[in-house]
């Protein structure tokens, strides 16, 4: 295992070839590259780029009670951006995003760290990692519904606490509150943080840590100056996953807040439920731009393409 930085160098140096064959090889390999990239490009082109463009187009359309009319209006945007509801909803969604991101990062990092550095055999690492994975394979909907009998007024937590005499009456904010939303989101999304961080931690050359220790660094210094910088790409990817998933969430917010909290996607869904597609599309474009900006910010900090 070699640390991340040296990889590109080895790769670059590994192709010293005679000039003529090199030229032919280069052309051939370029064609091969194109051919290999075609399926991905086609799929993303048709199922991603085209739909997004379509949304962008529809967001300028007019609509009324009965239908949609192709047009070029900025009304949907002025409606969306001009209302304090939008801003408040974004703020609320960002609040969830920040909380969930912070918590999943904290939990995810330490779980990954424990697995990577404290578990001695690869088999055990794999087994424990899979133990964490299994709950994520059960249907999202069922996993979400399952919080209700746990957190409800007469749910597991409240009944247990009351029976133990710790609280006199049920705690109301366990369910249908911001707490419940964040809890469920952390539950649903932590794996997306654990996996990439675990991956990068596993790739850290152990001799680097030994070297740091020999140089007299203590545990925290090693963590802060060696491990975390090397884990950055994993943290970045995990953050991208979590931020995206939370920003786009509607079902968790709806179910866990009992319909009492707003999220951007939920706002879109309410518009879609009355077939107000242009308004929803304008909202979608705004949301898309916000999410892309957030991801771009993450990518600015860590160039995952180089450091992956």
């Amino acid at each position, binding site marked *: 295992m070699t640390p991340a930085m040296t990889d590109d160098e080895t790769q670059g140096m590994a192709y010293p070839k005679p000039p003529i064959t090199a030229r032919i090889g280069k052309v051939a390999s370029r064609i091969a590259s194109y051919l290999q990239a075609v399926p991905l490009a086609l799929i993303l082109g048709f199922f991603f780029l085209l739909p997004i463009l379509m949304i962008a187009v529809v967001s300028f359309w007019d609509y009324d009670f009965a239908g949609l009319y192709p047009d070029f209006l900025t009304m949907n945007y002025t409606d969306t951006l001009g209302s304090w509801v939008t801003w408040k*909803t974004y703020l609320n969604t960002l609040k969830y995003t920040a909380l969930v991101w912070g918590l999943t990062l904290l939990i995810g990092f330490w779980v990954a760290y424990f697995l990577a550095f404290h578990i001695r055999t690869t088999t055990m690492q794999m087994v424990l990692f899979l133990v964490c994975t299994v709950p994520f394979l059960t249907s999202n909907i069922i996993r979400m519904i399952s919080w209700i009998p746990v957190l409800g007024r007469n749910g597991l937590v409240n009944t247990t606490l009351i029976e133990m005499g710790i609280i006199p009456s049920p705690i109301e904010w366990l369910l*249908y509150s911001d707490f419940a939303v964040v809890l469920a989101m952390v539950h649903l999304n932590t794996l997306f943080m654990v996996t990439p961080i675990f991956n990068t931690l596993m790739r850290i050359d152990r001799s680097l840590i030994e070297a740091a220790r020999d140089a007299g660094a203590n545990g925290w210094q090693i963590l802060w100056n060696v491990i975390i910088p090397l884990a950055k790409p994993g943290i970045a990817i995990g953050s991208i996953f979590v931020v995206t998933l939370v920003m786009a969430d509607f079902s968790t917010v*709806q179910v866990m807040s009992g319909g009492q909290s707003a999220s951007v996607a939920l706002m879109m869904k309410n518009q879609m*439920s009355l077939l107000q597609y242009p308004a929803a599309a304008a909202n979608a474009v705004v949301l898309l731009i916000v999410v892309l900006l957030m991801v771009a910010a993450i990518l600015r900090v860590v160039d995952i393409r180089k450091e992956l």
Partner: protein
Amino acid sequence: MTNETKTPKGISRRGLLKTGAAATGAIVGSGLITGFPTIWAQNPITLRQFGTGVSNINAIAEKCKADLGITLEMTATDSDAAAQRAVTQPDSYDIADIEYWILKKVFPAGVIQPMDIKKLKYYDKIVPLFKTGKLTPDSVIAQGTAPHTVGYVEKVGDKTFAKGETQFFTMVPTIYNADTLGIRPDLVGREITTWADIMDPAFKGKTSILNIPSIGIMDAAMIMEAMGNIKYADKGNMTKEEIDATIDFLIKAKQAGQFRAFWKSFDESVNLMASGEVVIQSMWSPAVAAVRSKGIACKYQPLKEGYRSWGGGLGLAAHLEGAQLDAAYEYINWYTSGWVGGYLNRQGYYSAAMDTAKEFMSADEWGYWIEGKAATGDIMSPEGKVMEKAGAVRDGGSFEERMGKVACWNSVMDEDRYMVKRWNEFIAA
């Protein structure tokens, strides 16, 4: 009924299918002789129907296969998805099972073709509520998107609704009911008589209303009016000022912590009530029955202001033609011929063709569910479980008492754009 007529009609059927739509009239005519003579088994026809789980019940598909030989593929969706699918994926279904209020938006999209009432065998049996808006000749037409206001068009191809009864029916009504407040009598501890009672500070944090914007706001309107805060010209079609007043009221109640949660699906309303999260909420009659079937006391409470009502029906997809269209008509005629009606009545909903449904219910069932009489024997659910013991009387009384006191139908407002905007505000508040 099916076996006797199988051979001869089957053959003629196949021949007719080849000649296509021209023969339609003849087939419908022949259908008048004995129930449902045409058998589709020899020429397999599949109809794809979608709608909420309320009426997309497998037992209906099974019975349809047995009686008609038509394979009915049912897809259950939530109510939002149903509206989306109706408009955005018109090729994905043959029969749309949707509610009247959303039909007001779906029909103008041109995805549903109107039905010729001459081909509807039981058109005469359909309760007048869906034709004139009046249950009895002297009743008052309720506010909101009353089904009859979106029930007819002047001619095929029209996208605006006709003022009165015409030859072209947009949907055949199938299922409807009146919603009111459901209560946990054991936890409420007092008489509940009005929609305003849901705002009683004693129930703070233990109430709920619907979370579908266009219906939730009507719950709120019922409450507002009951409290004497406002008098709406039409609760189902508010002006901007009325929407503002209603939403402001909701925001205040929400911030004061009056609501525990808002429910969106049947199931959520049952769970909220059964788990004791909520003691008083706007609720459906069958949801109340579902809570009660778990051994938990729950009451469908009639209120002095009347009910908020809803209705659903079956619409034919615009792309249907030829044999499929014939089959669809036959299916709809079968649907209204009584068996399904009896089945829906026994679940606590109402059938649109009451007379035909009556023949498929026992006298006791009819007495309990429709006439509001005390049950003489145990009342069983369609699945064969005891729902109510002998002697029980249905909350809210008879069909006439319930459907005769509808204050308002579920609606889409002309100002729906503004309404959704403000509703999002309420959720964000």
